[in-house]
């Protein structure tokens, strides 16, 4: 501890880091890897530059972090579409700085339908995206956070959207003196009434006109180089919880739910799932340079913050980290959802395993994912990219500051993404060129979203590259006899999109959990269909723990297809209740 203090005394900085070195990279396993990624964004038509702040330098923290990507099927044509947030510039924003919706035409071809879909909005500081069918009409809606007014884009089920944020009661009234900084957000049914409520984290109480300039105080430098200030030294913000009344409007219950009082954190990505298997949805909010928050659902629309108690607020040394992105999956195949959280440079990303009762253990070093610490991690996901039945981990990376590279060449602005293959027993191996040419491309990535964009059964990736066009990493997986399933969940008593549902799949002697998430990764929304690689297994059994509290079993045979699991159509096996876990 005194060592850490001594290190900190040498210089301050705005973003938490531990100053750690990477763990030694173990000897390569030599096992073949079948999933090769190729960036096909250009030919796919994803060409819009994702404007965000200065290209050479950033004077404000506002310019540095954004990156929402959403993969969802907005027009119910069976092909996953892509939404990408676009930001602004402090001075002279270009007229094309508008968030984009790309319609999937099939064959990995996309058409920009932003204007046609009614999503054209004046340039602004868009941040993240969350998906959910908040009005249960069968058409996926979209929530976009901003430094400014957040947007709730109601899907009109005719290929167009309408921003109903104000009408739905999601905008502050009266307007605050400085805009709120909406950051992470997630739809979640907190009271099991079948309607999705909404949690919105805020990053900084940020006043553009009263923020110190680079170099003005110890929080405005990194390794001695002046950079934009913050988040340390700036005002923290509070987070917001809105209950869905079921009539298209929301009620702010932040104070009475016990959320509002946690106002000493810099909130980033948010995920909602049943962390402790008690049948109620909880909210986990990665926070930058402050303890991350776990709002545990008491079952009565009140929450107890238990991040520290459950081991996911701080690192093993009790220090806060620069919590950015969140990957949720089951890395050790015990049927429980684990958490992978990405961080700043000179720190490791952290892998927490869940003991099934919502208590987490940091296994970063044991898992072998601490082998690189120069790259800042952002969007991340836990997916089985090679269909061997073991979920792997992907991280989009990129330095926060464009201007530091000249003075700090060891920390370049644009860096390669990282892929860790799961070797089994929650041990990982870092793959680079083995995973295809896209893994050697350097960008300053923020958001990342995962999904099957060409419906070939494997997981592709969309990366949000700051001030560049996005990347579309097509997964060219040679299946080699390996199988997969893609599960589209449909709630009947639960919210229609089944957000928050946990699926435990049994296949080939293995057991793996996944969840339907409204937001994950960094400020992004993944394909809501649940994907599993099966190895050589040709059949599987899915137990779905619906957000309504009911558990149901579905037999899956044949595999290698997309299956629709409708609540009530399977074989009911029980009902979850507070404090009980189903088998």
């Amino acid at each position, binding site marked *: *501890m*005194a*060592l*850490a203090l*001594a*290190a900190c*005394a*040498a*210089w301050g900085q705005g973003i938490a880091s531990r*100053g*750690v*070195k990477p763990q030694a990279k173990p000897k390569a396993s030599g096992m073949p890897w079948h999933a090769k990624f190729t960036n096909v964004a250009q030919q796919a038509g994803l060409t819009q530059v994702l404007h965000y702040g200065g290209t050479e330098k950033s004077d404000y923290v506002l310019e540095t972090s954004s990156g929402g990507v959403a993969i969802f099927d907005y027009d119910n044509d069976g092909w996953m579409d892509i939404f990408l947030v676009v930001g602004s510039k402090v001075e002279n924003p270009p007229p094309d700085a508008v968030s984009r919706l790309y319609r999937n035409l099939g064959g990995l071809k996309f058409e920009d339908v932003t204007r046609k879909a009614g999503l054209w909005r004046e340039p602004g500081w868009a941040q993240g995206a969350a998906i959910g069918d908040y009005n249960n009409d069968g058409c996926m809606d979209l929530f976009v956070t901003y430094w400014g007014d957040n947007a709730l884009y109601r899907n009109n089920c005719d290929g167009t959207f309408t921003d109903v944020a104000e009408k739905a009661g999601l905008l502050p009234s009266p307007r605050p003196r400085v805009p709120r900084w909406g950051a992470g957000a997630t739809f979640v049914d907190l009271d099991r009434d079948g309607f999705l409520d909404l949690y919105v984290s805020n990053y900084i109480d940020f006043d553009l006109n*009263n923020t*110190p300039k680079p170099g*003005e*105080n110890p*929080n405005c430098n990194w*390794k*001695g180089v002046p950079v934009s*200030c913050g988040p*340390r*030294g*700036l*005002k*923290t913000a509070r987070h917001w919880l809105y209950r869905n009344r079921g009539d298209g409007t929301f009620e702010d219950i932040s104070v009475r739910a016990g959320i509002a009082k946690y106002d*000493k*954190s810099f909130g980033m990505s948010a995920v909602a799932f049943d962390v402790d298997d008690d049948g109620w949805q909880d909210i986990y909010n990665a926070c930058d340079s*402050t*303890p991350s928050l776990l709002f545990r659902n008491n079952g009565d629309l009140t929450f107890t913050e238990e991040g*520290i*108690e459950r081991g996911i607020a*701080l690192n093993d*040394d*009790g*220090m*806060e980290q620069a919590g950015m992105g969140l990957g949720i999956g089951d890395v050790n195949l015990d049927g429980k959802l684990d958490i992978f959280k990405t961080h700043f440079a000179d720190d490791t990303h952290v892998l927490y395993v869940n003991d099934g009762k919502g208590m987490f253990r940091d296994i970063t070093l044991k898992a072998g994912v601490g082998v690189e610490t120069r790259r800042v991690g952002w969007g991340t996901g836990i997916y089985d990219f090679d269909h061997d039945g073991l979920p792997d981990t992907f991280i989009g990376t990129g330095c926060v500051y464009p201007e530091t590279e000249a003075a700090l060449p060891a920390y370049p602005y644009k860096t390669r993404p990282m892929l860790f293959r799961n070797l089994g027993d929650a041990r990982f191996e870092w793959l680079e060129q083995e995973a295809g040419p896209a893994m050697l491309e350097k960008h300053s990535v923020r958001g990342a979203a995962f999904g099957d964009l060409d419906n070939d059964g494997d997981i592709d990736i969309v990366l949000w590259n700051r001030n560049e066009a996005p990347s579309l990493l097509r997964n060219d997986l040679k299946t080699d006899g390996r199988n997969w399933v893609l599960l589209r969940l449909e709630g009947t008593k639960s919210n229609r999109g089944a957000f928050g549902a946990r699926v435990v799949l049994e296949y080939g002697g293995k057991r793996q959990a996944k969840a339907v998430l409204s937001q994950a990764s960094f400020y992004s929304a993944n394909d809501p269909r649940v994907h599993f690689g099966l190895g050589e297994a040709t059949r599987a059994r899915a137990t779905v723990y619906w957000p309504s509290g009911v558990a149901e079993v579905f037999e899956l045979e044949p595999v290698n297809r997309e299956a629709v699991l409708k609540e009530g159509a399977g074989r009911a096996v029980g009902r979850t209740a507070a404090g009980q876990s189903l088998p």
Partner: protein
Amino acid sequence: MLGVALILISLAVPQPDLLGDGQRAFARGDLDRAEALFREHVKRFPGSAEGWSNLAAVHARRGQYAEAVPLYERALKANPKLMPVHFNLAVSLGQLKRYADAAAHLRVFLKSYPNEARARQLLGLCLMESGDPRGALEELEKSYRLNPNDGSILYALAYAHARGGDENQAAAYLAKTESNPVQAKLIEGLLLYRRGMWAEAKEVFSEVVRRKPDFQPAVAALGRLELLERNDAAAIPLLERAVSLNPQDAESAYQLGVLYDRNGDSESGKKMLKRALALRAGYGDPHYQLGRIYQREGKLDQALAELEKARALLPEQEAVRMALGRVYQAMGRTAEAKAEFEEVRRLKARVVERDRLRVESDSLMKEGPENP
């Protein structure tokens, strides 16, 4: 750095012939004669604190500090109120590099003689050597205020500021000193380190060690820098050498303990951490590290004992409260765990708020007073 200042004690004389003659012999440098007279005196009057103290002084003058120490202790046993004996004993202890023990006696002495500049300086140096630069700084600055004409203290002050205080102050003190290349280089290295210029600091420390391989403060500084840069393989031999050159350096012992543990040798780590605790009273960090090791080993009772000691010494350290909370939690002591975790939340929030207030106050300072 330790300057020896022997103070002979003139006290009431129970046996004038022997004691008085002995003191006169000592004054003219006839140490053998003085020793013989003092020995005869204590043989006749074994309860004479003055006799034991004077005999000890003879050994100290000869540089026989190991012999002097028990004699001074016997004098204090005979009369604990003889404050000057504490000072003389501290000098001998300092020569034996028993800095923590020396500091304890100096503190007793300074209660009665708070304006004794040499004692403050000596205490500062002992604290520095036992790895408490902030405490050292406090004492050295008091000493300098008491005796601003004492040039020898300037290096000590510059060194202490560079280690634990303010680099600008250190540079200012350094500028006042006369040239002493090795000392000055060491301090220059510390200043570079404090300014975040680790590569440059490393170069300077390495140069000092090349020029004077047994200069312990430079070896320790280089080891610490390697440790902070996570170059454990380089840090370990340097800190091992630092501990061997100055076995009383509690800070190097602590850091070596951390290094041994994090490189898979927990048993050696624990030994070194315990050694640091034996060398320096009230040292919270080794208690914390020991607690973490015991916690990891599943020895919860021992972990709890160490972490509770760490909490008593470092109540505002979130890491200590966090580790303690986890141990309580593992022991099923839920209420105590909850209290610790709440304290972690409070302390973390306070850090965030303090950062914000500092930035706000910086901004206000820049704006200056409003024009009428």
